């Protein structure tokens, strides 16, 4: 998450003080991502250093300084909003590694391992949904942030379901023709989605 660009976005509405930025940041993310005031001032210093924000009262205490966005800051913000985050590299996902390891170990029931994680994630989704149930009607930013988390978790569940199905088919095939060449694991060295 880019605090830097979120603060730039808030400054693009007009000059603001640090404490005000913190408050508005939390409001605009539905208070799902709390931000400490130290992070705000450190980020403002860097924005100023990079020429993306400025303040007249350079001598004053940082709490007294009123920041505004520069022209360069406006350009940076516009570019950032339209730049896709780097999703090309598959992340080294701990859960994926756990399932891959479990599928290789003879004494471990990989389906049991999958179910443990599936249950945990559904429980987590229940918690997020409860938050939405209480507050979504009142706060759009909050609902958007919670939805993002729910979709992320849902995609993990879908992956677990698909892994479950694949492993079941693979073990059924293996039971029919037990040969050395029947490899349960997919080739993890091949980078999925990367065609370069």
């Amino acid at each position: 998450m880019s605090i830097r660009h979120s603060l730039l976005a808030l400054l693009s509405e007009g000059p603001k003080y640090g404490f005000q930025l913190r408050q508005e940041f939390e409001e605009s993310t539905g208070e799902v991502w709390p931000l400490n005031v130290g992070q705000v001032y450190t980020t403002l210093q860097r924005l100023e250093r990079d020429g993306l924000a400025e303040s007249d009262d350079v001598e004053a205490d940082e709490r007294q300084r009123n920041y505004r966005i520069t022209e360069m800051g406006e350009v940076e913000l516009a570019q950032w909003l339209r730049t896709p985050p780097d999703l090309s590299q598959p992340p080294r996902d701990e859960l994926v590694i756990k399932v891959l390891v479990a599928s290789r170990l003879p004494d471990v029931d990989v389906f049991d391992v999958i179910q443990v994680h599936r249950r945990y994630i559904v429980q987590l989704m229940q918690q997020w949904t409860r938050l939405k149930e209480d507050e979504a009607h009142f706060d759009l930013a909050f609902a958007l942030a919670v939805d993002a988390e729910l979709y992320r978790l849902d995609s993990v569940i879908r992956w677990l379901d698909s892994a479950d199905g694949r492993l079941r088919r693979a073990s059924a095939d293996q039971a029919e023709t037990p040969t050395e060449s029947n490899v349960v694991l997919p080739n993890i060295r091949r980078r999925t989605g990367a065609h370069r």
Partner: protein
Amino acid sequence: MSMLELRHVSKKYGQGANEVDAITDIDLAVERGSLVAIMGPSGSGKSTLLTIAGSLEEPTAGDVMIDGASLSGMSRNEKARLRRRSIGYVFQDFNLLKGLTAVENVSLPLELDGISMKKARAQGMAALEGLGLTDRADRFPDELSGGERQRVAIARAVVGERSLLLADEPSGALDSVNGESVMRMILAACHGGVAAVVVTHDAKLASWADRVVFLRDGKAVDETLPPPSPEALLESDVANPS
């Protein structure tokens, strides 16, 4: 007493070499006011479980109790009356009758139960009003959007004194915002004292439930623990990624 209770319920289809165990030894209790989701892949027995819970099919073994009354001791007519009075169904494809208006669809189960047309219509209108459909009452299903048809189906499932709501993939082909509002409506019915069971493969829908039961090859293999307070999320690392 549970509104719905399944005791060691099993269902087999076919005979001899073709015999298939659709569900095996399922125990499930759903209290009034609570929403239980059944999750599992296709073919895991979710829909069979729901049709047996709703007395639309007989189990091969075990018993189903609805509001304390055992279905195995009931005649065909008694079961039909129970279905008309106490059980509401929501199916994936809505199953509205095309030749009837929204309010006629909703009040049909009451009329079938011998309630006068006028009274049935009044109760049907009340159910539609609860789902924000008052101005759609006299439209036919093909004059309604997908989301509106689904709301009519839910109104029909909760009309009158229904106390058990059974839903099979109730968001059907609806988009996610409409799917969410379907779950909100079912939850609202639960807050009004209805017991509900929702069958789905969608974790986003299941996460509206108080409890999620996982089905696999016809067996209940796992279920969620009561979730901790959601406020904990806002203080955790999950909510505060670096």
